[in-house]
């Protein structure tokens, strides 16, 4: 019995130590964002700011087009996520319930694209977007990401687990496909839909390489791209830089802590990674 208590203590000790290491950068970011420049350069560093300097936040919002970056990120995230959900519902339904020629071939093609790393798409898509004259526009940021192949795959699996008898019963009662999909399948697939929505939103919000390449004017930058170029404006004023990163990170962290069950389940069920 004594040994068990000892083991438990050791386990909790390591878990807490590890947890603190994970949390520390977040804590340090927020703490720095509330310091004055003198406190930032204080040695040894102050763990907490002497008095909370909230005005670092308005200062950085004014220094860089922060609100513009933020709004761009929100617009791109909302449109791509919404569209992904709708197009995935429609295609997953077709792939799981409807019978049509070439269905399995087309579905395999969807799956095959999952195996290819996103970096492969970069250069040809950039060429396509430039030829369409879309560089520096919302179309460039949004259109290629209007669908989520992974979402289609996940949702199809989910739809397949719903008994097919339900579909035929509804058909006999004269229910049209679309009505059946909307009133029966979609409500039943709610957990999968929530996971898809959240994962897409997170990946899109944090996406970096594509927006970096297709935008070159400040008005079209998304938050991560805006942050990456921040150093040219903020220089070594780390308190301002940390205020900006806090504002970029906190919305997703809050969303995550509120809805973490769905996010973690989505990951552990599918193994999706970025």
């Amino acid at each position, binding site marked *: 019995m004594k040994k068990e208590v000892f083991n438990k203590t050791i386990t909790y000790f390591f878990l807490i130590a590890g947890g603190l290491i994970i949390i520390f950068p977040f804590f340090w970011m927020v703490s720095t964002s509330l310091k004055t420049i003198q406190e930032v350069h204080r040695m040894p560093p102050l763990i907490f700011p002497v008095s909370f300097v909230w005005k670092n936040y308005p200062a950085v919002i004014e220094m860089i087009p922060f609100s513009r970056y933020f709004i761009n990120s929100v617009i791109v995230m909302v449109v791509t996520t919404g569209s992904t959900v709708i197009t995935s519902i429609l295609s997953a339904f077709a792939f799981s319930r409807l*019978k049509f020629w070439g269905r399995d071939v087309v579905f395999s093609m969807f799956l095959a694209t999952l195996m290819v790393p996103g970096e492969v798409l970069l250069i040809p898509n950039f060429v396509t977007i430039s030829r369409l004259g879309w560089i520096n526009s919302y179309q460039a940021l949004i259109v290629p990401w209007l669908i989520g192949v992974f979402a289609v795959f996940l949702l199809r699996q989910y739809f397949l687990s719903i008994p097919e008898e339900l579909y035929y019963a509804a058909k006999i009662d004269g229910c049209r496909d679309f009505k059946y999909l909307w009133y029966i399948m979609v409500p039943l697939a709610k957990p999968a839909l929530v996971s898809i929505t959240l994962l897409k939103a997170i990946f899109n919000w944090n996406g970096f390489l594509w927006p970096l390449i297709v935008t070159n004017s400040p008005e079209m930058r998304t938050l991560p791209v805006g942050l990456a170029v921040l150093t040219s404006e903020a220089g070594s004023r780390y308190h301002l830089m940390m205020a900006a990163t806090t504002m970029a990170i906190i919305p997703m962290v809050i969303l995550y802590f509120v809805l973490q069950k769905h996010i973690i389940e989505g990951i552990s069920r599918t193994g999706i990674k970025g």
Partner: protein
Amino acid sequence: MEQKATLLSTIRGYLYILPALIILMVFHVYPILKSLDMSFYTSFNFIHNVVYARGLDNFYYIFNDSEFWLALRNTFIFVFGVVPISISISLVIAVMLNSISAFSKLFRSIYFTPFVTSTVAIAMVWRWIYHSRYGVLNNILTYVGFSPVAWVTDPDWAMVSLIILSIWQSLGYNIIIFLAGLQNINKQHYYAAQIDGASSLRRFFHITIPMLSPTIFFVSIMSVISAFKVFEEVYALFDKRPGPLYSCYTIVYYIYDKFANKYQYGIASAAVFVLLIIIMSLTLLQLYIGKRKVYYT
């Protein structure tokens, strides 16, 4: 009740998938083929989309380019620096989380937080932690009696800094997958072993590790793949540079550099081709070996 596909049902089926299919073809399928094709373009006007000449010159170029070999070398160092450590730590944490009941969910949530965080933003936070003069890490090191290190400006330490950041970031995902795997192990094995008097260490090495081997294999492949694609961390940690003296110049950085800074699309595409070969081999390895290595109870 089994229905057959008819012309009408086919039209209807395609109407349902049409929106997704169009985007998929234009922005996900066509670019894969185009990318392979572009790696052979030796003379190309991309504004008018005219190809004047094709050939193997891009591949000759990258394989004779010392920068490309440097990028490959750095990427391999990064992969071998991150993956084994990250997997070992996450496996131990997952086993610990699996063994406790109180606060297990809370810990899991905390460890997973870096996954939902913008890599660029958090890499900037790490740059501040690593700051050679005012950074908190060096201040702790000096406090406990070590000499401070120029984490992000010393070419010998830059890769170490990058690896630490990436391990910190990758733990959460691995832990979640390991936990899912651990929950599938039949508890009976542990009860039996305990009755036979096997120590917890022996239970770990003789039950947990073998039973979890398919998951460990899956996580390893996923980690290697994502480590091969490292870019954002480098870009943000070293402030738009590939580390001091190109010490963190990786394959994707090479691609980005050739494409976005030097406009050498053909050469960048050839490097993409090499990356694709590496990643596809790993994916296929996962698909074929992963299936065979499953332990049945």
